[in-house]
Structure formats: C-alpha cells, structure tokens
C-alpha cells in the first residue's frame, strides 16, 4: 500500500469560519491512517482574485505548488475552490512551457522555481484514488442504516471537468458512493450538480441566496434528512445562511447540513462532540436522534 502522506492545504475560508470541517476531517484522516503535514508557509490559493486579475491568481497558486514541491509532498485540500485552482494551475504550468517560463521569472525573485513535481487534489478524489473504498469500509463501526441524506459536491469538485476529471459532472457518483459506505442512503434530487451561489453573495445577495434556496427545496423534496457537503463555502451557504433564507422567503427548511467528515466520523464511532457538531448553525439534533433510533 502506498504511503498516505500529504501536505494539508487548509485555505482561508475554513480557518476563518468553518472550523468544524477541519476538526472532523482531521479525525477521520487519522482513523484512515492518513498522515497530514502542515504547510510550512502559505498564501491564499488565488481563486478569490481570479475575477480581478488572472495573472495574480496564477502566481499565488504557483507559489503554493512550489511549497509542496520543496516538501516533496502532494497537496490535499478540504476546499473545492483550492483544489480546482491548484490543480488547474499545476496542469497549465506543466503543459505550457511559455507560461511556465514567465511564472518562473516572477518566482525567481522570491527564490522559488516551479518544477512540476507535485500534485494537488481534494480529499474526495484522494479517497477514491489513493485510499480506496475498501479501506474506508473497514473503518465503519456503526453503520448509519436507515438514514437518508443528499449530497452537494460543489461546482469545483467537478468542474471544469477537464481539470477535475475523476467524476461525471452531470451525474456525480464518487461522493454518493462514499456516503453509501457509511450505511446511509444517498438520494437523487433535481439539479444535484448546481451551484450554491457563494461566489456572488457579495455582488448580488438576492440572486445568490435564491440559488441556495432552490437547492434546499430540491433536497427537501427528495426526502433527505440532511445535506452533505465537502466545501466550506457551500457549507456556509446551506448551513449558516439557511435561517436567513427562511426569514427572507418566509418558509421553513430545518435541514441539517453536515460536512462529509462528520457523517463518516459518526459511522466510524466518533461522538458528535468530537466531530464539532456543536458548531453547526442548523440544529443537528433531529438527525442525531434519527441515527440513535436506527
């Protein structure tokens, strides 16, 4: 078995306001025998400034890739935005000589050089390709049989598909498969692969929240008891913004939103406290009771 050792790229959104994701992820990684090395240095992956200046994004991403190369490790991320950005820029710099030369001229000024010796991936991809479903299955101690949930992969786990390239962007299956390992049933619902709206909330809040709201409707209509996310930004929209959407549109969802590591963690036998359930905005007690009842 290959060694499961990665450089953890935490990104900005998780330490800023989604610590529950990090806490639960570290728990399940340890249980799976995944060793995480902390970044020795860091800057934002670059994605947030791509709409403003593509070249700045490229440089910021490249610097992180260089840090991984210096450590001789591949990057693992929890955020889909960091994953897509680091993968995309890595691919571009490896394929395009001219671009690589230009970016390396900048990097040289900060004593770095992009060589193209590291990879970057979201942990869901690593679970599929490096860890393997069998190994995850072996860690399940308390299967969540009877539980019905839905998944939200998030755009950047799937698209651009030529960059992500390990799942079907029109009918994503990897996260679903990983959810089913826990014993829970993962339901289909309308427009599963659609956007949560996060990236435009500061530009047009109403449009952004309507995107989130529509997804919440579809998930509820399918009969899911919880929504499972694998991105801090998507999680903020569905969990933190949910009560706001309820007030704005005068309706009730009361749909608990869990990070996938929290769901898997429960099935591994961790307690809700160990998985930072107390940090969720939408009260998860009904789903915890449903699990207890099964």
């Amino acid at each position, binding site marked *: 078995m290959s060694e499961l050792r990665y450089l953890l790229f935490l990104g900005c959104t998780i330490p800023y306001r989604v610590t529950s994701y990090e806490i639960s992820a570290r728990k399940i990684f340890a249980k799976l025998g995944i060793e995480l090395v902390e970044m020795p240095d860091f800057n934002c992956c670059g994605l947030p400034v791509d709409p403003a200046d593509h070249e700045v994004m490229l440089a910021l991403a490249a610097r992180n890739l260089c840090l991984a190369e210096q450590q001789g490790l591949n990057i693992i991320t929890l955020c889909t935005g960091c994953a897509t950005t680091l993968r995309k820029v890595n691919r571009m710099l490896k394929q395009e000589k001219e671009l690589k030369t230009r970016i390396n001229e900048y990097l040289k000024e900060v004593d770095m050089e992009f060589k193209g010796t590291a990879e970057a991936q979201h942990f869901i991809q690593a679970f599929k390709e490096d860890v393997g479903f069998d190994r995850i299955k072996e860690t399940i101690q308390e299967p969540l049989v009877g539980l019905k949930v839905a998944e939200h992969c998030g*755009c950047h786990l799937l*698209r651009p598909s030529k960059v992500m390239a390990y799942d079907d962007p029109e009918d994503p299956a990897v996260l679903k498969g990983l959810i089913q390992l826990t014993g829970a049933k993962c339901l289909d619902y309308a427009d599963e692969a659609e956007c949560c709206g996060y990236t435009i909330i500061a530009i047009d809040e109403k449009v952004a929240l*309507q995107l989130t709201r529509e997804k919440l409707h579809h998930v509820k209509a399918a009969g899911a008891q919880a929504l499972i996310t694998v991105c801090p930004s998507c999680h903020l929209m569905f969990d933190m913004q949910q009560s706001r959407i309820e007030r704005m549109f005068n309706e009730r969802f009361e749909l608990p939103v869990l990070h996938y590591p929290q769901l898997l963690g429960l099935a591994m036998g961790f307690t809700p406290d160990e998985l930072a359930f107390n940090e969720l905005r939408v009260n998860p007690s009904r789903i915890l009771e449903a699990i207890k009842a099964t």
Partner: protein
Amino acid sequence: MGEKTEALRDVQPTRLDPSFKYEVMKERDGETLKICFQCGTCTSSCPTARFSDSYRPRTILRMAQLGLRRKVLSSPTLWLCTACFTCTDRCPQDVEVASVLRVLRNLAIREGQIPRIYAELASNIYETGYAYKIPEQRERKRQEVGLPPLPKPSLDKVDRLIELVGGSKLIKSKEPE
C-alpha cells in the same frame, strides 16, 4: 425606451469598437470568443441566469464579438458569474465561456471598474496572506480545541510576488489618493 430599441441603438457602427474582440482574444483563454456561434447552451445552463433579470452569458459574448466595448466592460452584470463552469463544460463549440467572462472582468478592472469585494479580498491577501482577516483570538481557540497553529505566510515574499505580477492596482492601501 424599450430594452430592444435600446439594444438596437447600441449596435451602431459609430458605437462599435471592432478592435475589442482582438483585445479579448489576446488574453489567456480569450481566443475562444471567436468560435462562439450563439447557440445559447451557456445561458440555458447558467444558474444565475435563472434568477437574474439581466445576466445572460450568451448576450455578453455576442456584445463582445460585436465590439460593444464600453457597454460590456461597464456592465454590472459582468460580475454575476459564479464561476461554476457549467457553461464551459457544456459548450458544443469548446468556447471557454467562463474564462472569456473572466477575461472581460479582468479588462473591466484594468479600466478601473473594481467591485469593492475584489479590492478587499486582494488587500487581505496582501496584508495577511489569507483572503479573509482571521481574528487573532481564532489562534487561541484553535489551541483550545487541539488544532495546530495556522500556517504563517512569508508576507514579504507574498507581497513582492503580487507586486511583480502587477497586482498592486488591486490593493486598497495602494490606491492613488
């Protein structure tokens, strides 16, 4: 004046800038603008277009092809792309739709049209390495719950890099008074 009449008024030879499409095509991923044949798959796949009255990726690409430079670059709807990349994935012509839209936003910023949020995000990265200003007490809280300290960015290096690639124009503290 109705919306249609207004659009027609804009499509006048004197209002068009025929060089605009070349300006777009010169930028990375912008070259695919020329192969858009206006089928509308992007707009019909666009999550934002369903809820916004004005944001239509197909229309923006057509306006760019026609050379409606000022209209495109000053349009507030340019900023409503969520970068979900569904349009790019589904385009039958392999137009990098989302990336062409990013090129247009980059050009708008070069003209000085920077939405506050992007100046803020860029400035945060310049000042802290992170896109958000993470409160100091967060570090203490991390320790309490057993999390390792956050990675410390080498700010001198990060800032030097941002300046080298021409990112200074995004930074609030560097704005000309």
